[in-house]
Protein backbone atom coordinates (compact mmCIF):
# COMPACT_ATOMS: atom_id res chain seq x y z
CA UNK A 1 0.00 0.00 0.00
CA UNK A 2 2.94 2.29 -0.54
CA UNK A 3 1.19 5.00 -2.45
CA UNK A 4 3.93 7.58 -2.89
CA UNK A 5 6.61 6.14 -5.13
CA UNK A 6 7.30 9.47 -6.81
CA UNK A 7 8.10 11.24 -3.56
CA UNK A 8 10.89 8.89 -2.69
CA UNK A 9 12.23 8.19 -6.15
CA UNK A 10 12.12 11.51 -7.94
CA UNK A 11 15.08 13.83 -7.46
CA UNK A 12 14.34 17.06 -5.60
CA UNK A 13 12.79 19.65 -7.87
CA UNK A 14 15.54 21.84 -9.31
CA UNK A 15 15.77 25.07 -7.38
CA UNK A 16 16.30 28.33 -9.24
CA UNK A 17 18.33 28.20 -12.40
CA UNK A 18 19.93 24.78 -12.00
CA UNK A 19 20.76 23.26 -15.35
CA UNK A 20 18.59 20.26 -16.12
CA UNK A 21 19.15 17.88 -18.96
CA UNK A 22 16.31 17.01 -21.31
CA UNK A 23 16.63 13.33 -20.42
CA UNK A 24 16.27 14.09 -16.73
CA UNK A 25 13.21 16.21 -17.39
CA UNK A 26 11.57 13.51 -19.46
CA UNK A 27 12.32 10.90 -16.81
CA UNK A 28 11.07 13.15 -14.05
CA UNK A 29 7.87 13.80 -15.97
CA UNK A 30 7.37 10.13 -16.70
CA UNK A 31 7.97 8.91 -13.20
CA UNK A 32 5.92 11.65 -11.63
CA UNK A 33 3.13 11.11 -14.13
CA UNK A 34 2.98 7.38 -13.58
CA UNK A 35 3.10 7.88 -9.82
CA UNK A 36 0.15 10.23 -9.95
CA UNK A 37 -1.70 7.93 -12.31
CA UNK A 38 -1.20 5.05 -9.89
CA UNK A 39 -2.56 7.13 -7.03
CA UNK A 40 -5.58 8.17 -9.05
CA UNK A 41 -6.33 4.59 -10.11
CA UNK A 42 -6.04 3.34 -6.55
CA UNK A 43 -8.25 6.09 -5.21
CA UNK A 44 -10.81 5.33 -7.91
CA UNK A 45 -10.79 1.64 -7.02
CA UNK A 46 -11.18 2.42 -3.34
CA UNK A 47 -14.09 4.78 -3.96
CA UNK A 48 -15.75 2.31 -6.31
CA UNK A 49 -15.45 -0.59 -3.86
CA UNK A 50 -16.63 1.43 -0.90
CA UNK A 51 -19.65 2.90 -2.70
CA UNK A 52 -20.75 -0.50 -4.01
CA UNK A 53 -20.20 -2.08 -0.63
CA UNK A 54 -22.26 0.52 1.19
CA UNK A 55 -25.08 0.33 -1.28
CA UNK A 56 -25.21 -3.46 -1.08
CA UNK A 57 -24.87 -3.80 2.67
CA UNK A 58 -27.49 -1.11 3.35
CA UNK A 59 -30.11 -3.15 1.46
CA UNK A 60 -29.23 -6.44 3.11
CA UNK A 61 -32.23 -7.89 4.91
CA UNK A 62 -30.00 -10.16 6.91
CA UNK A 63 -27.07 -9.10 9.04
CA UNK A 64 -24.06 -8.77 6.77
CA UNK A 65 -21.68 -10.00 9.43
CA UNK A 66 -23.64 -12.82 11.05
CA UNK A 67 -25.95 -14.23 8.38
CA UNK A 68 -24.98 -17.70 7.16
CA UNK A 69 -26.55 -17.91 3.71
CA UNK A 70 -25.72 -15.99 0.57
CA UNK A 71 -28.96 -15.14 -1.24
CA UNK A 72 -28.12 -11.73 -2.61
CA UNK A 73 -30.36 -12.17 -5.65
CA UNK A 74 -33.51 -13.09 -3.74
CA UNK A 75 -36.18 -10.52 -2.97
CA UNK A 76 -35.58 -9.35 -0.37
CA UNK A 77 -31.82 -10.06 -0.49
CA UNK A 78 -30.43 -11.92 2.51
CA UNK A 79 -26.70 -12.50 2.68
CA UNK A 80 -23.85 -12.55 5.18
CA UNK A 81 -20.21 -13.42 5.44
CA UNK A 82 -20.21 -15.54 8.62
CA UNK A 83 -19.73 -18.88 6.83
CA UNK A 84 -17.31 -17.41 4.31
CA UNK A 85 -15.10 -15.74 6.90
CA UNK A 86 -15.07 -18.87 9.01
CA UNK A 87 -14.32 -21.15 6.08
CA UNK A 88 -11.61 -18.88 4.74
CA UNK A 89 -9.86 -18.63 8.08
CA UNK A 90 -10.23 -22.33 8.96
CA UNK A 91 -8.98 -23.63 5.61
CA UNK A 92 -6.05 -21.22 5.67
CA UNK A 93 -5.14 -22.14 9.24
CA UNK A 94 -5.18 -25.83 8.34
CA UNK A 95 -3.01 -25.06 5.33
CA UNK A 96 -0.51 -23.08 7.40
CA UNK A 97 -0.34 -25.67 10.19
CA UNK A 98 0.62 -28.30 7.62
CA UNK A 99 2.67 -26.19 5.23
CA UNK A 100 4.90 -24.23 7.60
CA UNK A 101 6.76 -27.10 9.29
CA UNK A 102 6.97 -29.08 6.05
CA UNK A 103 8.31 -26.09 4.13
CA UNK A 104 10.90 -25.19 6.75
CA UNK A 105 11.96 -28.82 6.83
CA UNK A 106 12.40 -29.02 3.06
CA UNK A 107 14.14 -25.64 2.95
CA UNK A 108 16.58 -26.65 5.69
CA UNK A 109 17.22 -29.95 3.96
CA UNK A 110 18.06 -28.15 0.73
CA UNK A 111 20.19 -25.43 2.31
CA UNK A 112 21.94 -27.27 5.15
CA UNK A 113 21.62 -31.03 4.97
CA UNK A 114 21.47 -32.38 1.44
CA UNK A 115 24.67 -32.82 -0.58
CA UNK A 116 24.80 -30.39 -3.47
CA UNK A 117 23.99 -32.94 -6.16
CA UNK A 118 20.71 -33.69 -4.39
CA UNK A 119 19.98 -30.15 -3.27
CA UNK A 120 20.12 -28.44 -6.66
CA UNK A 121 17.64 -30.66 -8.49
CA UNK A 122 15.35 -30.67 -5.48
CA UNK A 123 15.38 -26.88 -5.32
CA UNK A 124 14.64 -26.80 -9.03
CA UNK A 125 11.63 -29.10 -8.68
CA UNK A 126 10.24 -27.01 -5.84
CA UNK A 127 10.68 -23.91 -8.01
CA UNK A 128 8.68 -25.59 -10.75
CA UNK A 129 5.89 -26.58 -8.36
CA UNK A 130 5.50 -22.94 -7.34
CA UNK A 131 4.70 -22.08 -10.94
CA UNK A 132 1.93 -24.65 -11.46
CA UNK A 133 -1.40 -22.85 -12.10
CA UNK A 134 -3.93 -23.24 -9.31
CA UNK A 135 -6.58 -24.77 -11.56
CA UNK A 136 -4.24 -27.71 -12.07
CA UNK A 137 -4.02 -28.18 -8.32
CA UNK A 138 -7.80 -27.81 -8.19
CA UNK A 139 -8.39 -30.54 -10.76
CA UNK A 140 -5.89 -32.80 -9.09
CA UNK A 141 -7.60 -32.13 -5.78
CA UNK A 142 -11.06 -32.93 -7.12
CA UNK A 143 -10.08 -35.95 -9.20
CA UNK A 144 -7.41 -37.52 -7.03
CA UNK A 145 -7.21 -36.08 -3.54
CA UNK A 146 -10.94 -36.14 -2.71
CA UNK A 147 -11.47 -39.84 -3.59
CA UNK A 148 -8.29 -40.78 -1.70
CA UNK A 149 -9.13 -38.98 1.52
CA UNK A 150 -11.52 -41.65 2.83
CA UNK A 151 -8.92 -43.61 4.75
CA UNK A 152 -7.51 -40.60 6.51
CA UNK A 153 -10.87 -39.07 7.35
CA UNK A 154 -12.22 -42.38 8.66
CA UNK A 155 -9.11 -42.75 10.83
CA UNK A 156 -9.40 -39.19 12.17
CA UNK A 157 -13.09 -39.68 12.81
CA UNK A 158 -12.50 -42.92 14.68
CA UNK A 159 -9.56 -41.90 16.87
CA UNK A 160 -9.86 -38.13 17.11
CA UNK A 161 -13.61 -37.79 16.73
CA UNK A 162 -13.92 -37.03 20.45
CA UNK A 163 -12.25 -33.67 19.82
CA UNK A 164 -15.46 -32.63 17.96
CA UNK A 165 -13.23 -30.99 15.33
CA UNK A 166 -12.55 -34.34 13.63
CA UNK A 167 -16.07 -35.73 14.09
CA UNK A 168 -17.86 -36.63 10.87
CA UNK A 169 -21.62 -36.05 11.01
CA UNK A 170 -22.17 -38.67 8.31
CA UNK A 171 -19.16 -41.00 8.21
CA UNK A 172 -18.11 -42.04 4.74
CA UNK A 173 -19.36 -38.93 2.90
CA UNK A 174 -17.25 -37.53 0.12
CA UNK A 175 -14.31 -35.55 1.41
CA UNK A 176 -15.26 -32.22 -0.19
CA UNK A 177 -14.64 -30.57 3.16
CA UNK A 178 -12.70 -27.60 4.53
CA UNK A 179 -10.15 -30.11 5.78
CA UNK A 180 -9.44 -31.39 2.28
CA UNK A 181 -9.34 -27.82 1.03
CA UNK A 182 -6.82 -27.03 3.77
CA UNK A 183 -4.60 -29.94 2.69
CA UNK A 184 -4.81 -28.90 -0.95
CA UNK A 185 -3.98 -25.30 -0.05
CA UNK A 186 -1.04 -26.56 2.01
CA UNK A 187 0.30 -28.45 -1.00
CA UNK A 188 -0.11 -25.31 -3.09
CA UNK A 189 1.73 -22.98 -0.72
CA UNK A 190 4.53 -25.33 0.36
CA UNK A 191 6.62 -24.48 -2.74
CA UNK A 192 6.31 -20.74 -2.12
CA UNK A 193 7.18 -20.88 1.56
CA UNK A 194 9.99 -23.34 0.86
CA UNK A 195 11.55 -21.18 -1.84
CA UNK A 196 11.59 -18.01 0.19
CA UNK A 197 12.78 -19.74 3.37
CA UNK A 198 15.53 -21.52 1.49
CA UNK A 199 16.88 -18.22 0.19
CA UNK A 200 16.82 -16.77 3.69
CA UNK A 201 18.58 -19.81 5.17
CA UNK A 202 21.25 -19.50 2.54
CA UNK A 203 21.97 -15.93 3.58
CA UNK A 204 22.81 -16.76 7.17
CA UNK A 205 26.36 -15.46 7.60
CA UNK A 206 28.99 -18.19 7.78
CA UNK A 207 30.39 -16.50 10.89
CA UNK A 208 27.18 -17.14 12.84
CA UNK A 209 27.19 -20.80 11.96
CA UNK A 210 30.88 -21.19 12.75
CA UNK A 211 30.30 -19.53 16.12
CA UNK A 212 27.92 -22.34 17.01
CA UNK A 213 30.07 -25.06 15.43
CA UNK A 214 33.15 -23.96 17.35
CA UNK A 215 31.21 -24.25 20.61
CA UNK A 216 30.57 -27.89 19.83
CA UNK A 217 27.11 -27.61 18.34
CA UNK A 218 25.69 -30.48 16.31
CA UNK A 219 24.20 -29.72 12.92
CA UNK A 220 20.72 -29.42 14.37
CA UNK A 221 22.01 -27.18 17.16
CA UNK A 222 23.64 -24.93 14.58
CA UNK A 223 20.27 -24.67 12.87
CA UNK A 224 18.57 -23.85 16.15
CA UNK A 225 21.15 -21.37 17.47
CA UNK A 226 22.21 -19.58 14.32
CA UNK A 227 20.06 -20.33 11.31
CA UNK A 228 16.48 -20.17 12.57
CA UNK A 229 16.90 -17.05 14.74
CA UNK A 230 18.57 -15.22 11.89
CA UNK A 231 15.91 -16.35 9.42
CA UNK A 232 12.99 -15.60 11.70
CA UNK A 233 11.67 -12.49 10.03
CA UNK A 234 12.27 -14.05 6.64
CA UNK A 235 10.21 -17.07 7.66
CA UNK A 236 7.41 -14.76 8.76
CA UNK A 237 7.50 -13.02 5.39
CA UNK A 238 7.52 -16.34 3.57
CA UNK A 239 4.52 -17.48 5.59
CA UNK A 240 2.70 -14.28 4.74
CA UNK A 241 3.24 -14.91 1.04
CA UNK A 242 1.87 -18.41 1.44
CA UNK A 243 -1.01 -17.32 3.64
CA UNK A 244 -1.90 -14.59 1.17
CA UNK A 245 -2.22 -17.17 -1.56
CA UNK A 246 -4.23 -19.52 0.67
CA UNK A 247 -6.65 -16.79 1.76
CA UNK A 248 -7.32 -15.64 -1.77
CA UNK A 249 -7.25 -18.98 -3.56
CA UNK A 250 -10.29 -19.33 -5.78
CA UNK A 251 -10.26 -22.06 -8.37
CA UNK A 252 -8.72 -24.83 -6.30
CA UNK A 253 -11.23 -24.28 -3.50
CA UNK A 254 -14.19 -23.93 -5.85
CA UNK A 255 -13.35 -27.23 -7.57
CA UNK A 256 -12.92 -29.20 -4.38
CA UNK A 257 -15.30 -27.80 -1.79
CA UNK A 258 -18.93 -28.83 -1.68
CA UNK A 259 -20.16 -25.51 -0.42
CA UNK A 260 -23.24 -24.92 1.69
CA UNK A 261 -24.31 -22.21 4.10
CA UNK A 262 -23.41 -24.25 7.14
CA UNK A 263 -21.03 -23.14 9.82
CA UNK A 264 -19.78 -26.22 11.60
CA UNK A 265 -16.91 -27.12 13.88
CA UNK A 266 -16.68 -30.50 12.11
CA UNK A 267 -14.03 -29.68 9.56
CA UNK A 268 -14.39 -33.09 7.88
CA UNK A 269 -18.00 -32.39 6.86
CA UNK A 270 -18.63 -31.32 3.26
CA UNK A 271 -19.90 -27.86 4.12
CA UNK A 272 -18.94 -24.23 4.38
CA UNK A 273 -17.38 -21.84 1.92
CA UNK A 274 -14.68 -19.23 1.44
CA UNK A 275 -14.76 -15.66 0.16
CA UNK A 276 -12.95 -16.32 -3.08
CA UNK A 277 -14.85 -19.54 -3.78
CA UNK A 278 -18.18 -17.82 -3.09
CA UNK A 279 -17.36 -15.02 -5.49
CA UNK A 280 -16.30 -17.47 -8.17
CA UNK A 281 -19.44 -19.60 -7.82
CA UNK A 282 -21.91 -16.67 -7.82
CA UNK A 283 -20.37 -14.05 -10.04
CA UNK A 284 -21.51 -15.57 -13.32
CA UNK A 285 -25.26 -15.50 -12.69
CA UNK A 286 -25.34 -12.55 -10.32
CA UNK A 287 -27.50 -9.48 -10.95
CA UNK A 288 -25.93 -6.05 -10.63
CA UNK A 289 -26.97 -5.96 -7.01
CA UNK A 290 -25.65 -9.47 -6.45
CA UNK A 291 -22.29 -8.34 -7.79
CA UNK A 292 -22.24 -5.41 -5.40
CA UNK A 293 -22.84 -7.85 -2.57
CA UNK A 294 -19.95 -10.02 -3.77
CA UNK A 295 -17.75 -6.94 -3.96
CA UNK A 296 -18.63 -6.22 -0.34
CA UNK A 297 -17.44 -9.69 0.63
CA UNK A 298 -14.24 -9.12 -1.35
CA UNK A 299 -13.60 -5.99 0.64
CA UNK A 300 -13.89 -8.00 3.86
CA UNK A 301 -11.33 -10.49 2.55
CA UNK A 302 -9.04 -7.57 1.77
CA UNK A 303 -9.40 -6.24 5.31
CA UNK A 304 -8.61 -9.70 6.75
CA UNK A 305 -5.48 -9.88 4.59
CA UNK A 306 -4.43 -6.44 5.79
CA UNK A 307 -4.92 -7.42 9.42
CA UNK A 308 -2.84 -10.58 8.97
CA UNK A 309 -0.06 -8.61 7.33
CA UNK A 310 -0.15 -6.02 10.09
CA UNK A 311 0.17 -8.75 12.70
CA UNK A 312 3.14 -10.20 10.82
CA UNK A 313 4.87 -6.84 10.73
CA UNK A 314 4.39 -6.53 14.47
CA UNK A 315 6.00 -9.93 15.02
CA UNK A 316 8.99 -8.83 12.97
CA UNK A 317 9.27 -5.43 14.63
CA UNK A 318 8.93 -6.72 18.18
CA UNK A 319 12.38 -8.26 18.27
CA UNK A 320 14.06 -5.90 15.88
CA UNK A 321 17.01 -5.16 18.14
CA UNK A 322 17.77 -8.86 18.24
CA UNK A 323 17.44 -9.34 14.51
CA UNK A 324 20.42 -10.75 12.69
CA UNK A 325 20.48 -7.74 10.43
CA UNK A 326 21.64 -5.52 13.29
CA UNK A 327 24.97 -7.32 13.59
Amino acid at each position, binding site marked *: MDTTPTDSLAPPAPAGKTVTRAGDRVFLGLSRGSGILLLVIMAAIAVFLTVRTISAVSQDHGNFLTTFEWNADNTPPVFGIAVLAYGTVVSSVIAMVIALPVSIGIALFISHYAPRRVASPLAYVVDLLAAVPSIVYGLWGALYLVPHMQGLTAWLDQYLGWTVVFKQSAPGTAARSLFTVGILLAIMIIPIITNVSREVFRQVPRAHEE*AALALGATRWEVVRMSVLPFARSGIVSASMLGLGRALGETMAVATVLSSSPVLTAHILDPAGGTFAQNIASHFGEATDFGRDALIASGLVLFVITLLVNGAARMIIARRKEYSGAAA
Partner: protein
Amino acid sequence: MAKRIDVSGLSAYYGNHLAIEDISMTVEPRSVTAFIGPSGCGKSTFLRTLNRMHEVTPGGRVEGKVMLDEENLYGAGVDPVAVRRTVGMVFQRPNPFPTMSIYDNVAAGLRLNGTAKRKKDLDTIVERSLVGANLWNEVKDRLNKPGAGLSGGQQQRLCIARAIAVEPDVLLMDEPCSALDPISTLAIEDLIGELKERFTIVIVTHNMQQAARVSDRTAFFNLAGVGQPGRLIELDETQRIFSNPSAQATEDYISGRFG
Protein backbone atom coordinates in the same frame (compact mmCIF):
# COMPACT_ATOMS: atom_id res chain seq x y z
CA MET B 1 42.21 -28.27 32.37
CA ALA B 2 45.02 -27.21 30.08
CA LYS B 3 46.41 -29.90 27.82
CA ARG B 4 49.45 -30.36 25.60
CA ILE B 5 48.97 -30.48 21.83
CA ASP B 6 51.26 -32.70 19.81
CA VAL B 7 50.97 -32.38 16.05
CA SER B 8 52.78 -34.73 13.71
CA GLY B 9 52.91 -34.88 9.92
CA LEU B 10 49.82 -32.77 9.43
CA SER B 11 48.72 -31.64 5.97
CA ALA B 12 45.47 -29.90 5.07
CA TYR B 13 43.72 -29.60 1.73
CA TYR B 14 40.98 -27.50 0.16
CA GLY B 15 39.76 -29.91 -2.48
CA ASN B 16 42.91 -30.70 -4.41
CA HIS B 17 44.78 -27.65 -3.18
CA LEU B 18 47.37 -28.51 -0.54
CA ALA B 19 47.27 -25.52 1.82
CA ILE B 20 49.72 -26.67 4.53
CA GLU B 21 52.16 -29.50 4.34
CA ASP B 22 53.72 -31.84 6.87
CA ILE B 23 53.55 -29.75 10.02
CA SER B 24 54.81 -31.15 13.30
CA MET B 25 55.00 -29.21 16.55
CA THR B 26 54.27 -29.33 20.23
CA VAL B 27 52.18 -26.68 21.99
CA GLU B 28 52.88 -26.52 25.72
CA PRO B 29 50.02 -26.34 28.23
CA ARG B 30 49.48 -23.18 30.31
CA SER B 31 51.37 -21.03 27.87
CA VAL B 32 50.71 -18.82 24.89
CA THR B 33 51.97 -19.94 21.50
CA ALA B 34 51.83 -17.38 18.70
CA PHE B 35 51.64 -18.20 14.98
CA ILE B 36 53.20 -15.61 12.70
CA GLY B 37 53.92 -15.55 9.00
CA PRO B 38 52.97 -13.85 5.75
CA SER B 39 49.31 -13.95 4.85
CA GLY B 40 48.23 -16.98 2.89
CA CYS B 41 50.84 -19.21 4.52
CA GLY B 42 48.15 -21.28 6.20
CA LYS B 43 48.09 -20.02 9.80
CA SER B 44 44.29 -19.96 9.94
CA THR B 45 44.05 -23.26 8.14
CA PHE B 46 46.43 -24.89 10.59
CA LEU B 47 44.64 -23.38 13.58
CA ARG B 48 41.34 -24.74 12.32
CA THR B 49 42.76 -28.25 12.05
CA LEU B 50 43.36 -28.15 15.80
CA ASN B 51 39.63 -28.20 16.62
CA ARG B 52 38.47 -30.00 13.50
CA MET B 53 36.87 -26.87 12.09
CA HIS B 54 38.83 -27.22 8.86
CA GLU B 55 36.65 -30.07 7.70
CA VAL B 56 33.44 -28.01 7.81
CA THR B 57 34.75 -26.01 4.85
CA PRO B 58 33.51 -27.69 1.65
CA GLY B 59 36.36 -29.84 0.34
CA GLY B 60 38.33 -29.49 3.57
CA ARG B 61 40.48 -32.55 4.32
CA VAL B 62 43.22 -33.30 6.84
CA GLU B 63 46.01 -35.88 6.98
CA GLY B 64 48.20 -36.51 9.99
CA LYS B 65 47.86 -36.64 13.72
CA VAL B 66 46.88 -34.15 16.42
CA MET B 67 47.34 -35.53 19.93
CA LEU B 68 45.60 -33.74 22.78
CA ASP B 69 47.49 -35.28 25.68
CA GLU B 70 46.78 -38.97 25.04
CA GLU B 71 43.94 -38.64 22.51
CA ASN B 72 44.30 -38.40 18.74
CA LEU B 73 41.73 -35.83 17.60
CA TYR B 74 41.67 -37.47 14.18
CA GLY B 75 41.49 -41.01 15.52
CA ALA B 76 38.80 -43.37 14.32
CA GLY B 77 35.51 -42.89 16.11
CA VAL B 78 36.38 -39.44 17.49
CA ASP B 79 33.38 -37.13 17.27
CA PRO B 80 34.38 -33.70 15.90
CA VAL B 81 31.55 -32.14 17.90
CA ALA B 82 33.11 -33.43 21.11
CA VAL B 83 36.54 -32.17 20.01
CA ARG B 84 35.18 -28.65 19.56
CA ARG B 85 33.79 -28.69 23.09
CA THR B 86 37.26 -29.23 24.50
CA VAL B 87 39.09 -26.98 22.05
CA GLY B 88 37.47 -23.55 22.01
CA MET B 89 37.89 -20.93 19.32
CA VAL B 90 37.74 -17.15 18.98
CA PHE B 91 37.43 -15.69 15.49
CA GLN B 92 38.93 -12.75 13.70
CA ARG B 93 35.69 -10.80 13.57
CA PRO B 94 33.69 -10.83 16.79
CA ASN B 95 30.70 -13.08 16.16
CA PRO B 96 28.33 -13.07 19.12
CA PHE B 97 24.96 -14.65 18.33
CA PRO B 98 23.03 -11.57 17.16
CA THR B 99 19.66 -12.87 18.26
CA MET B 100 20.79 -13.64 21.81
CA SER B 101 21.24 -11.51 24.88
CA ILE B 102 24.65 -11.10 26.50
CA TYR B 103 23.69 -13.68 29.11
CA ASP B 104 22.45 -16.18 26.55
CA ASN B 105 25.57 -15.74 24.46
CA VAL B 106 27.76 -16.79 27.35
CA ALA B 107 25.39 -19.59 28.31
CA ALA B 108 25.04 -20.85 24.73
CA GLY B 109 27.73 -23.50 24.95
CA LEU B 110 26.48 -24.67 28.35
CA ARG B 111 23.03 -25.29 26.98
CA LEU B 112 24.19 -27.45 24.11
CA ASN B 113 23.43 -31.11 23.81
CA GLY B 114 21.14 -31.37 26.78
CA THR B 115 23.85 -30.25 29.17
CA ALA B 116 21.21 -27.96 30.64
CA LYS B 117 22.12 -26.69 34.07
CA ARG B 118 20.04 -25.26 36.85
CA LYS B 119 19.46 -21.53 36.60
CA LYS B 120 21.53 -20.87 39.69
CA ASP B 121 24.56 -22.79 38.42
CA LEU B 122 24.19 -21.13 35.05
CA ASP B 123 24.18 -17.70 36.68
CA THR B 124 27.38 -18.56 38.52
CA ILE B 125 29.17 -19.78 35.42
CA VAL B 126 28.03 -16.85 33.30
CA GLU B 127 29.28 -14.40 35.91
CA ARG B 128 32.57 -16.27 36.34
CA SER B 129 33.14 -16.34 32.58
CA LEU B 130 32.37 -12.67 32.13
CA VAL B 131 34.67 -11.83 35.04
CA GLY B 132 37.26 -14.07 33.44
CA ALA B 133 36.92 -12.16 30.17
CA ASN B 134 37.25 -8.80 31.99
CA LEU B 135 33.80 -7.83 30.81
CA TRP B 136 31.64 -8.31 33.90
CA ASN B 137 31.82 -4.74 35.19
CA GLU B 138 30.83 -3.31 31.85
CA VAL B 139 27.80 -5.52 31.24
CA LYS B 140 26.53 -6.69 34.63
CA ASP B 141 23.61 -4.23 34.49
CA ARG B 142 22.51 -5.20 31.01
CA LEU B 143 22.87 -8.94 30.78
CA ASN B 144 19.54 -9.18 29.02
CA LYS B 145 20.43 -6.71 26.29
CA PRO B 146 21.51 -8.04 22.88
CA GLY B 147 25.18 -8.90 22.57
CA ALA B 148 25.30 -7.20 19.18
CA GLY B 149 24.81 -3.84 20.93
CA LEU B 150 28.29 -3.90 22.48
CA SER B 151 31.38 -2.25 21.02
CA GLY B 152 33.70 -4.35 18.86
CA GLY B 153 36.19 -4.88 21.69
CA GLN B 154 33.45 -5.79 24.13
CA GLN B 155 31.93 -8.18 21.60
CA GLN B 156 35.28 -9.91 21.21
CA ARG B 157 35.61 -10.28 24.99
CA LEU B 158 32.03 -11.59 25.01
CA CYS B 159 33.13 -14.21 22.49
CA ILE B 160 36.04 -15.09 24.75
CA ALA B 161 33.66 -15.38 27.71
CA ARG B 162 31.45 -17.64 25.61
CA ALA B 163 34.43 -19.80 24.69
CA ILE B 164 35.81 -20.16 28.23
CA ALA B 165 32.39 -20.75 29.81
CA VAL B 166 32.51 -24.39 28.73
CA GLU B 167 35.94 -24.80 30.34
CA PRO B 168 37.84 -25.97 27.25
CA ASP B 169 41.31 -27.50 27.45
CA VAL B 170 42.65 -25.29 24.70
CA LEU B 171 41.72 -21.85 23.41
CA LEU B 172 42.45 -21.02 19.77
CA MET B 173 42.39 -17.40 18.64
CA ASP B 174 42.61 -16.33 15.01
CA GLU B 175 43.81 -12.72 14.86
CA PRO B 176 41.40 -11.80 17.66
CA CYS B 177 42.44 -8.14 17.67
CA SER B 178 42.73 -7.38 13.97
CA ALA B 179 39.27 -5.80 13.84
CA LEU B 180 39.76 -3.81 17.05
CA ASP B 181 41.11 -0.40 18.08
CA PRO B 182 44.38 -0.14 20.09
CA ILE B 183 42.68 0.20 23.50
CA SER B 184 40.48 -2.84 22.98
CA THR B 185 43.52 -4.68 21.66
CA LEU B 186 45.40 -3.91 24.86
CA ALA B 187 42.47 -5.14 26.94
CA ILE B 188 42.48 -8.44 25.07
CA GLU B 189 46.25 -8.82 25.33
CA ASP B 190 46.03 -8.36 29.11
CA LEU B 191 43.25 -10.90 29.17
CA ILE B 192 45.35 -13.44 27.26
CA GLY B 193 48.06 -13.03 29.89
CA GLU B 194 45.54 -13.95 32.60
CA LEU B 195 43.91 -16.80 30.68
CA LYS B 196 47.15 -18.68 30.13
CA GLU B 197 47.13 -19.60 33.82
CA ARG B 198 44.21 -21.89 33.06
CA PHE B 199 44.28 -22.73 29.36
CA THR B 200 46.61 -23.74 26.57
CA ILE B 201 46.42 -20.77 24.24
CA VAL B 202 47.27 -20.55 20.56
CA ILE B 203 47.01 -17.17 18.89
CA VAL B 204 47.43 -16.25 15.25
CA THR B 205 48.59 -12.70 14.76
CA HIS B 206 49.89 -10.64 11.89
CA ASN B 207 51.27 -8.16 14.40
CA MET B 208 54.79 -9.10 15.50
CA GLN B 209 54.80 -6.70 18.43
CA GLN B 210 51.71 -8.45 19.66
CA ALA B 211 53.35 -11.83 19.32
CA ALA B 212 56.34 -10.52 21.24
CA ARG B 213 54.12 -9.06 23.97
CA VAL B 214 51.74 -11.91 24.65
CA SER B 215 53.40 -15.18 23.71
CA ASP B 216 55.84 -17.51 25.38
CA ARG B 217 56.67 -19.37 22.22
CA THR B 218 56.35 -18.36 18.59
CA ALA B 219 55.96 -20.42 15.46
CA PHE B 220 56.93 -18.95 12.12
CA PHE B 221 55.17 -20.23 9.00
CA ASN B 222 56.16 -19.50 5.46
CA LEU B 223 55.40 -20.56 1.92
CA ALA B 224 57.83 -21.02 -0.92
CA GLY B 225 55.67 -19.11 -3.37
CA VAL B 226 52.13 -18.43 -4.53
CA GLY B 227 50.17 -21.66 -4.81
CA GLN B 228 52.78 -23.54 -2.78
CA PRO B 229 51.76 -25.12 0.52
CA GLY B 230 52.59 -23.35 3.78
CA ARG B 231 55.14 -24.94 6.08
CA LEU B 232 56.34 -24.50 9.63
CA ILE B 233 59.79 -22.92 9.51
CA GLU B 234 60.57 -22.93 13.20
CA LEU B 235 59.05 -22.87 16.66
CA ASP B 236 61.01 -21.55 19.59
CA GLU B 237 60.96 -19.33 22.66
CA THR B 238 59.47 -16.03 21.56
CA GLN B 239 62.50 -14.19 22.84
CA ARG B 240 64.80 -16.32 20.74
CA ILE B 241 62.68 -16.02 17.61
CA PHE B 242 62.80 -12.25 17.83
CA SER B 243 66.45 -11.91 18.85
CA ASN B 244 68.29 -14.83 17.37
CA PRO B 245 66.19 -17.08 15.14
CA SER B 246 67.83 -20.14 13.68
CA ALA B 247 66.32 -19.87 10.20
CA GLN B 248 67.29 -17.14 7.76
CA ALA B 249 63.67 -16.83 6.53
CA THR B 250 62.50 -16.04 10.06
CA GLU B 251 65.12 -13.37 10.47
CA ASP B 252 64.19 -11.83 7.12
CA TYR B 253 60.53 -11.81 8.04
CA ILE B 254 60.83 -10.28 11.50
CA SER B 255 63.29 -7.67 10.37
CA GLY B 256 60.96 -6.67 7.58
CA ARG B 257 63.32 -7.82 4.86
CA PHE B 258 60.69 -10.11 3.58
CA GLY B 259 59.86 -11.10 0.04
